[in-house]
């Protein structure tokens, strides 16, 4: 918690414009600081970004945890249901597909932030719908996992074809989106993200107990009085909401969803969801704030793409942890 608070303020204090710490506190708590531009930067840019980082890290972490328990597979993450790829396809169709289809209906409208959000939401919702329909017909979670991966490669293929034929500036726009970004969100967008995040998290709290039973497998969970079908739907829905809205607003953030649950398990040495869910929320937020602070490249004007930072930092850490403990106690 302490680390979390420190990182929150560290994150807010870093940026291309250096602002003294005292002014940051006064801007946050009183809404005023010695320069009005500083107040503006803090309140309208850095604070929303810090909140986004927290929601992205914790939301993706929790999605990953749910997926790993649900599929009983340590490799599962929000990506495996093909949600991020669905969102990617939506955005790719918007940015690169529209001109291919001869739709040049006012480029400015098409490329606006909100249309990207809508496109990626539609993409995730379509994939989510197909997965829900599939999960009604197919009761085998492993089959569902494979179908999710197939969705991912299918959408990936379509995106490749689109990018092969599209103009370089469109391709660049798409790649920028796919690199992920925590900034650029207005308070309205943050509050939309926040309400969806809260909704998903609230359902998740009610899933803590049945998720523990699911650790033993579906038959045992059933024998402990868990309604398996209801649980399956709720898990898929929570993951879709969290991953869908995060991807829509911040782009497909790699790695966090897979790695955060493992990190928490290694720290807390348990699988109990009563401990895992809060610890994933906190460690997800901490990691994301940290990654974003590093992406700011302190004392410089450059901002690295957040997606590169998460993987660049995270992958070696996880490899090191596995080598050290010699096994993932999944």
């Amino acid at each position, binding site marked *: 918690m302490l680390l979390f608070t420190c990182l929150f303020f560290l994150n807010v204090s870093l940026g291309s414009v250096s602002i003294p710490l005292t002014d940051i506190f006064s801007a946050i708590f009183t809404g005023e600081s010695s320069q009005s531009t500083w107040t503006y930067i803090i309140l309208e840019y850095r604070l929303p970004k810090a909140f986004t980082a927290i929601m992205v890290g914790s939301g993706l972490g929790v999605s990953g945890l749910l997926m790993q328990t649900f599929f*009983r597979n340590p490799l599962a993450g929000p990506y495996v249901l093909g949600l991020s790829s669905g969102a990617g396809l939506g955005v790719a169709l918007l940015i690169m597909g529209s001109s291919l289809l001869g739709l040049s209906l006012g480029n400015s409208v098409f490329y606006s932030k909100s249309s990207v959000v809508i496109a990626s939401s539609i993409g995730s919702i379509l994939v989510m719908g197909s997965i829900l329909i599939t999960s009604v017909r197919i009761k085998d979670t492993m089959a569902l996992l494979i179908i999710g991966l197939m969705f991912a490669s299918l959408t990936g293929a379509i995106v490749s074809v689109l990018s092969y034929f599209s103009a370089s500036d469109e391709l660049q726009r798409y790649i920028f989106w796919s690199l992920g970004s925590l900034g650029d969100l207005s308070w309205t967008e943050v509050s939309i993200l926040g309400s969806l995040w809260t909704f998903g998290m609230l359902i998740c*709290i009610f899933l*803590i*107990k049945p998720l523990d039973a699911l*650790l033993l*497998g579906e038959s*045992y969970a059933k*024998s*402990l009085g868990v309604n398996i079908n209801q649980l399956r739907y709720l898990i898929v829905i929570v993951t879709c909401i969290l991953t869908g809205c995060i991807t829509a607003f911040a782009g497909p953030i790699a790695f966090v969803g897979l790695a955060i649950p493992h990190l928490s398990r290694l720290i807390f040495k348990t699988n109990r969801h009563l401990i895992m869910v809060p610890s994933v929320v906190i460690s997800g937020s901490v990691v994301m704030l940290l990654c974003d602070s590093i992406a700011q490249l302190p004392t410089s004007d450059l901002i690295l793409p957040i997606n590169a930072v998460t993987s660049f930092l995270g992958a070696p850490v996880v490899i090191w942890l596995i080598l050290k403990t010699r096994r993932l106690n999944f």
Partner: protein
Amino acid sequence: MRLEAKNLKIGYKNPEKIVLDNINLEFNGADLIAVIGVNGIGKSTLLKSFGGIIPTLGGDFFIDNKSIRKYNQKELAKKISIVLTKQPQPQNLSISDFVALGRQPYTNWLGINSDNDKKKVNEAIKQVELFDLRNDRLVNLSDGQLQKALIARAIAQDTDIILLDEPTSHLDLYYKALIFKLLKKISSNAKKAVLFATHEMNLSLQICDQIILIKDNQIIKQTPEKLIESGILTNLFPNDSILFDNKTGQFNINP
């Protein structure tokens, strides 16, 4: 507690495969009951159907004179606990945490254990003699200890009936005997009906109160003595490799 199967038909849907039909059985009270029969005859299917893990295809099964269809999942969880042959992956859980999962039907929505739950969990762990290891994680246990932990979880669920699917597979002879004695103790001390599928016919004939023999799609329930007297065990297997000795009541290798 009373169990009764009436014209029960069990098997799988999609594609439909009837494993056993016309099952009529009745149990009363706290007995140790072994379900025996050759591989693939339907022992596990029978137990899973009794436990409500797979739906029955026809007929009816009554627990305390109430049809299994009329129980909801949670009520059933307070009547029957199961221990399956396909063991859960060794988890990052301590024995205490694992056994505590057995209390789920009784805990609140967040799954927090009350003092009473904790007491029951500790009793269950003591009963299988794992109390000294209660903080060890499942990954670190031997097969035999893991099996004991699984049984403790079922005990903690505090049900009248415990169903076990091949509880002694993968175990050495010592642990097999130990688990059998443990099951006997549970059924007689805790007054539970303990029903288990097994291939350990020799041990079952020595220790069980009742035997359910599945043979040629027929189901016979008898005490071990009467089963031996009836001579039905003589023809259970082809005679070239194994023979049943009626005097000792044991199967022996045909030299």
